[in-house]
């Protein structure tokens, strides 16, 4: 009988203790791990008048992005390379090299994007022509509406 009671108490302690731990740990873990399933919400950003982008000549366009950063709203100056062949279809490239993130430039004479860090070379379409970059230039989704160019500031891997 004495052993019986001891056993019951043991199970009671384990059961209740486990229940208490779980009921605190579950919400705590939800809170702590929440960044995993947090969705980034981005709005379309107005980049500029579509007809201001010259044909066949990559143009660097700077813009200001307002976005939520936790409890703050921050403004960031960012830039893109915008390319169009016909003034209707646009490619908007992220301005950093896909190799190690250096800023690249458009060489007017060679008609290539050249990254000075490790001699990465991209074509006007963003394809890798030479050097170490592992993939084509990263892009931003874009759309043209009433002659205005909008982009979604979420990188699509090239």
């Amino acid at each position: 009988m004495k052993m019986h009671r001891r056993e019951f108490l043991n199970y009671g302690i384990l059961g209740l203790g486990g229940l208490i731990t779980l009921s605190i740990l579950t919400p705590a873990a939800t809170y702590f791990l929440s960044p995993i399933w947090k969705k980034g919400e981005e709005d379309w950003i107005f980049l500029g008048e579509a007809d201001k982008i010259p044909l066949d000549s990559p143009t660097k366009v700077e813009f200001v992005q307002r976005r939520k950063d936790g409890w703050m709203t921050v403004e960031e100056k960012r830039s893109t390379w915008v390319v169009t062949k016909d003034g209707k279809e646009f490619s908007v490239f992220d301005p950093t090299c896909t190799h190690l993130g250096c800023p690249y430039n458009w060489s007017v004479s060679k008609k290539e994007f050249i990254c000075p860090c490790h001699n990465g070379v991209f074509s006007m379409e963003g394809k890798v022509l030479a050097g170490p970059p592992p993939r084509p230039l990263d892009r931003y989704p874009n759309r043209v509406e009433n002659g205005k160019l909008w982009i979604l500031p979420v990188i699509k891997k090239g």
Partner: protein
Amino acid sequence: MHPLKWVQDRFGWNNIKEALLDRKIPNPKPWSWFYTLGSATLAVLLVQVATGMLLAMNYSPSPDHAYDSILYIMNQVPLGWFIRGLHDWGASAMIVLMLLHLLRIFVMGSYKAPREMTWIIGIFLLLVVFGLGFTGYLLPWDQKAYWATAVGVNIAEQAPFLGPLIAKVLKGGGELGALTLSRFYSFHVLVLPALLALLMALHLYLVVYHGISAPPHPKGKEPPDYQKLKGEGKSFYPHSVFKDIVAVAIVLGIVSFLAIYFGSHLGDPADPNDSSYNPRPEWYFLFLFQMLKLFPGSLETVAAIILPTVGVIVLLLLPFFGSPAERHPTARPFSMGIGLVAVTLFIWFTYEGWRSPLLNPRIARNPMILEGKILYTNLKCAYCHSMKGEGGNIGPDLAATIPIRSDKWIENHFRKPQSVIPGSKMPELNLLDEEIYALIAYLRDIGGGGVSVVKAEKLFQENCQTCHKVDGKGGDMGPDLSHIGAFRETSWIKAYTENPQALNPDSVMPEFKSSLTPEDLETLARWLSSKK
């Protein structure tokens, strides 16, 4: 050798088990459930530590961001509201449990020799926990936080001789501000918890070293031999542990229920210029708050500093009064009398403080309006636009144009001004959706909302003009309302018109809730709030 056995061996588990788990506890009957209060306090403390760590991950101890970061926890972080609720209600639970624990020890005379140090350290633990409460509720940086802290610091300032210096050290400077907040934050999450951990360890060590006190022996009988009682008792594990864990489950269940059902309050953001706010402390400081009212100004120091200090000193010295052999309450009528008076006063003062009239009308405000106001300033809208004569004249006067436009129109205008007004000089601001809605809410509030001025003026003439004046027309019985909008917002005016005595008990104004429709009241309030 079995790996588990090896680890146990290396840590001397058998000795630990013998000293902690197998140690005999004198039979606590019939008071065994009262012996669980200490363990329950410890459990709530652990919850406070865990929830506190989580809250600190999303909290920013600066006046610019503190309030917003709490809003972020409440609205954006999954279960953030619950974690904050647990921390908030857990703090109250800590205080309640500690006071009950103290009461149990006091009534049973358990603080007497040889457990004097356990008691003294317990009193310091109580002070540290009050300190944690005091530093903790500044952190949200809302009105209550700011003003209750201002009062607390001013109380410290009244201490004789060192008062002003103490206040300066507490504030981290001359004014309550950024330095105070970061200082209180450090106190709340580093200094006091470290102190608490140290005192806690000592307290628990002493509890194990001296053993739990046996229930008091009846008056007039010889005190029984403690070692003999201990030898006859049952082991700490599982007998005491089981009751402890049942008590902990009940307490945490109640705290969770309170956190879910009532949540955790966040007031309006701290506004140091708001002279209408009537601060009230957290409930566990209400007795002090109420006591201050009983003393005339010249004796303020007595209530604010001297009496609390004397109270703490009496508590600390308590183990050295009376005979250590007399533990039963009936054998200590004097102590019990004093204790009863103290408990009664504490409860009575807390109750009186709690039901003393709250001068702050709790009017549900739209947080969007405030958000919009901040944006209006940050975006420098007033550079081009004017509202009631203040601001630039490049854009139109907003008070005139906003009432005639729909929300949809204003939203489209914010997104692409030229799409609704071709050739508009208004820049595209790339605002986030929620920023646009906040600005609309603010503009609606300022512009008085869509309101028929003709109808409002007619309502005013029929109901108010006998007593109140607006723009030079009307009676003198009540105050001139020509500039009421500069002092009160729409929701306040509406609430006041509905039932003046609820906000100002001395008012002789009749209530209009029964004679006017809610729409009419809203129209009137909006129109009046545009009188600036």
